[in-house]
Each structure stands twice: as C-alpha cells, then as structure tokens.
C-alpha cells in the first residue's frame, strides 16, 4: 500500500452496495407484479439519487398520481440524508447481499422523514453538511458559503458520480485539512513539513483546529446477543441514537486512537475519559481483543471487561459489540487521524456505526 496515497480513499469512493429493490405491494397495479430492480448503489451516495433509474423501471406498474420516492427496509422508512453505505452498515449488522429494500412512490411519511424534492434537496443537504463540517474544522462556514457557483456544481457532481479526483481538486480550495495528533504527524511527515524547523511545525499545528466532524449512529444493546446473525430488527428510529458531537483531539504527543475518539464522544459510557484521555491500550477495557472477536465468544470478553472497575457510578465497562465505518470494522487502537483521513465521507464527516452494550448502572 502506498503511504500517504489515496488508495484507501479510492476504495471508499468506489464502494457500492448491491440493492434489490421491490415496489411496495400497495402500489402494484399490474399482473404479474414488476420484477425487483437490481442496482449497484454507491456507498457515498444517497438513496433518492437512484430514482432516475427506478422511476422508468416501475412507472408502468404505478397507480395514477404524483411520485414522491422513498424507501424502507423491513418496514423502517430510510432517512435519505444519511449516506447509503451508512444505512447499510447500521441496519444490516450481518451484511445482506443483495440488500432488499422496498421503494414507494406514494404516501410519503412526512412525520418521520424530511421532505425530499429529488436531487436538489439532496444537494442542499450535502452542502449544509459540508458547511457544518467546515464550521467544526475552521470555526467558520465562509469558505463553503462563498464557493463559486461552478465549483459548487462541480463539487456536487463529483459526489453524485463518485469522482474522487474532482472532489479533491475542488474541496482543496475549502482548506478543510484536518490536523492529526502529533504522534501520527511524526509517523507520516509530509515532505513539505520536513523542510521546516521543528518550531515552525509545532506552531502551525497549534494554530490549526483539531476538531473533527463526526456523526455517530448508536444502538445501545441491552441484551446479550452472541453473534450478529441474531441481529436486532429496527422498526423505529427511536431505537437508534444519533449523536452529532465533534471529536476534539486533545493532548500533545499523545497517540489518539479510534477508541479515544469514541470515548470522547460518549462521556455517558466513559465517564472517566472526560477531558483526560489516557491511551493505555494494553489492558484497555472495552476493546474486544482480536482473537476473541474472531471466535465470537462474547462471554469471555465480558468477564474480562467486568474485572477492571474504575468507574464510581457504573458497574463494569461498556462493551463495543460492533464498530463499523465504510463497511469495515477497524481495530480500535489505530490512529484516529488515519481513520478520518481515509474513511470520511465527501461531506467531511466521519460516519460511525456503533453497537454498544451499556454498563449496568449501580443503584441510584
């Protein structure tokens, strides 16, 4: 693998999910009913962007009326502003291929889903998200808001068409560079930085922001489930907490891991990690060691976790059952800055899907 290259990012951009899309029974007016549509949906894309392909496919079977496209998975209306890959990672713990979705052209559930007027809505949702990311990184959305019209159009097209190079070229003007922790920076110094004196490098790093845009989708597991085939069935979005908190990479010279990031977003689960995150991941509770993970014996893991009691308020430690980003389950001890740089979405947000088993609270 090329170091510092864009290989991992390219994989993310090329990633796609095979979908098998059925027209909802209530909207079928033909006999026999139309066959399901098979589509490869880009991970970084959004479901409504598939409608130009789906409409002609199903239009012959539809009852008369106005089309408003929406999708559901096993009855759960899918939020269109969440990237398709994230929906898949979140709702399909055991990846189902092809992923069976249902498309509707009528009866938009406006009480659950934000209205969507096709591509334009998706585009603005993307731009708003980018603006938010820019604000987190820079403390200002100006660069995004002042983007020229042609740049805005090209940037959006690059997302729609999965053109990483175009996206990189235009988004570089927004100067949304993310500063990692010192440790990772030393590991992978850019040639430019190497020419500077140490003092200068530190000065630049200090002046830049280290807030990282993160969207976390969290399912708080209350029962044990041993393997993901007994995955939960989500019939309401209320079962999933959406946590939109930036990660602040704090502390100099520390090796800030993915687990550190998760801890900093979830002080509810990791009360001791508030502000002072120490990266001793030797005996880090909460991590499922690789060997144990692969055997899928969660009992062992819990026993080891319960042993280390540090928190005054909670008995035991939370156990991360599943952490998935862009379809992969990265080790929790890898540098967070690597994860961000390579696995973020084109809106500059890192979308993390997390299943976590909450520690049991002591009597209150």
């Amino acid at each position, binding site marked *: 693998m090329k170091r510092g290259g864009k290989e991992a990012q390219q994989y993310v951009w090329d990633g796609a999910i095979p979908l098998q899309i059925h027209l909802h029974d209530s909207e079928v007016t033909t006999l026999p009913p139309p066959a399901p549509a098979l589509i490869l949906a880009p991970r970084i894309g959004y479901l409504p962007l598939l409608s130009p392909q789906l409409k002609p496919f199903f239009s012959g079977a539809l009852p008369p009326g106005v089309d408003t496209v929406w999708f559901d998975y096993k009855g759960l209306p899918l939020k269109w502003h969440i990237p398709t890959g994230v929906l898949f990672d979140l709702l399909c713990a055991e990846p189902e291929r092809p992923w069976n979705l249902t498309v509707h052209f009528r009866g938009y559930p406006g009480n659950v889903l934000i209205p969507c007027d096709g591509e334009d809505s998706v585009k603005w949702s993307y731009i*708003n998200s980018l603006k938010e990311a820019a604000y987190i990184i820079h403390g200002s959305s100006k660069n995004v808001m002042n983007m020229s019209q042609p740049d805005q159009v090209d940037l959006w097209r690059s997302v729609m068409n999965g053109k990483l190079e175009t996206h990189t070229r235009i988004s570089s003007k927004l100067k949304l560079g993310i500063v990692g922790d010192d440790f990772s920076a030393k590991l992978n110094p850019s040639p430019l930085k190497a020419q500077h004196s140490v003092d200068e490098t530190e000065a630049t790093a200090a002046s830049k922001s280290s807030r990282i845009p993160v969207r976390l989708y969290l399912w708080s597991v209350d029962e044990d489930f041993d393997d993901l085939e007994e995955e939960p069935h989500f019939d309401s*979005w209320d079962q999933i907490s959406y946590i*939109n*908190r930036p990660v602040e990479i704090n502390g100099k010279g520390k090796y800030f891991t993915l687990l550190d990031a998760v801890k900093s977003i979830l*002080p*509810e689960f990791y009360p001791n990690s508030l502000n002072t995150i120490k990266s001793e991941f030797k005996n880090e509770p909460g991590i499922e060691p690789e060997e144990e993970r692969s055997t899928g014996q969660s009992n062992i893991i819990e026993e080891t976790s319960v042993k280390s009691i540090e928190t*005054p308020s909670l008995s035991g430690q939370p156990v991360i059952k599943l952490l998935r980003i862009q379809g992969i389950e990265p080790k929790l001890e890898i540098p967070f800055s690597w994860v961000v740089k390579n696995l973020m979405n084109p809106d500059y947000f890192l979308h993390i899907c997390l299943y976590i088993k*909450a520690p049991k609270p002591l009597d*209150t």
Partner: protein
Amino acid sequence: MNQTVSIVILKVVMVSDQETCDGSLSLSDFRIAANAFTEKWNKFNSAFPEWYWIDCSNRLGFAAHGVVDGYLSLQNVFIRRSLEEEHDEGSSNDDDELFDDATLVQSTSDDGDQYHFHVVYSPSYKVPVLYFHAHSTDGQPLNLDEIEKNLPTKSAKVLLESKWTFITQEEHPYLNRPWYMLHPCGTNEWMKLLLLAGDNSMATNGTEQYFISWFSVVGQVFGLKLPFEMLKSIG
C-alpha cells in the same frame, strides 16, 4: 436596532476579529444560561407559556452520572395569521422599539396556529439553535408557506431571499423527526456583532446576556417578545 438585526440575519456580516467574544457559547454555559433565562422568563412573563428544561440525560438507555443532556421547550404558543394590509413595509422609525408588532402572539387562542419551540445546543456550531414545529387548530402540520404567513413581514422577506440558510427543515436531534429550524451557520457572526454593540461588561453575567441577546433576535422572527425586565440586562 430593528433594522440592524434584520440585516444581520439576512447576510453574514464580517467583523474584524477581536478576541473579546467569538460569538459562540460552550455547552456548560448553555445549560447555565438556559436555566437563568427560563427562571427570568417565567418570573417576568407569567401570563405566557413557560419554558421548561427537558432532561435527556438518559437518552442512551440509562442515566449516566455527571452527564447533563437536554433542551429548552416552550409549548403551545398561538400565533394568529396576520392580515397583509396591516403591514406597511420599510417604515421603521428607527426608534428603540425592538420588536415588530405585526404578528400577534398570544398564549391562548381559538383561531391561531399552534407553535412549539425548542432551544437545542449545537455542538458543531457551539451556539443555541431554535427548532420549531407548527400545526393548525385541526392538528395538521403547517408547511413553510403557511408558516411564512404567520411571520412578521420582515422575517418573511428574509425568508424568501434566503430559503436554505434561514429556515430549513432538519431532523430534531432528540426527537428523531423533522422539525423546522433557524439555521445556525450564521449565528456566531451576528452574535459577535450584537455583543460588540453592547458594552463589554461580559464578565459577570456574560452567558446570561448571550442567551437573552440571542433570543431577542430569533424570537423576533416569530414576534416573540422578551419582557422588558429581561431586555434591560442587554442594554
């Protein structure tokens, strides 16, 4: 004042970077300020519906110690659709009147549309954000066009000129369903201006002043008035 504020909402105005205040509020200050605001509002504005703090500390399935999570809520505000001829545009006499009287806000009404307001902290923008939901007497949720009819003319104009950065529909961070919100991407810029305009005695009750100043702008969009006693504190 009225004019300035409208302009500030309309466009993100650049200010020279001064270190006095960056226009943002920390999460812990938000909670403190929200509490103080609620207390004063409920004291000085007792004829009006009250603000409540909705506690969400256990929204992840258990109550974690030391973690306070939640938002402010003001329920059941009735806003009557105003008659167009009552407005006369652009005749602000630049007096010290802070609010546009065009919209009649009432606490009880039979013929008004019902509004619910939530103030939620945005960790991304580090500012309070006003979310709202509106429905008519028959329970039908209002769409943006219908909401516009409830707004004072000035707000409606701003709305038209900047549809996407002003009022947008987004997911309520705690309720998991679509609510309207005043988009926060410009908030810190106009807050910077507002706080610079006032005197710089931010030391003692700065966060409280922040919250009141902020509400004086966003509340104005709906014709929500602050009690005089609260306005005094922001000069």
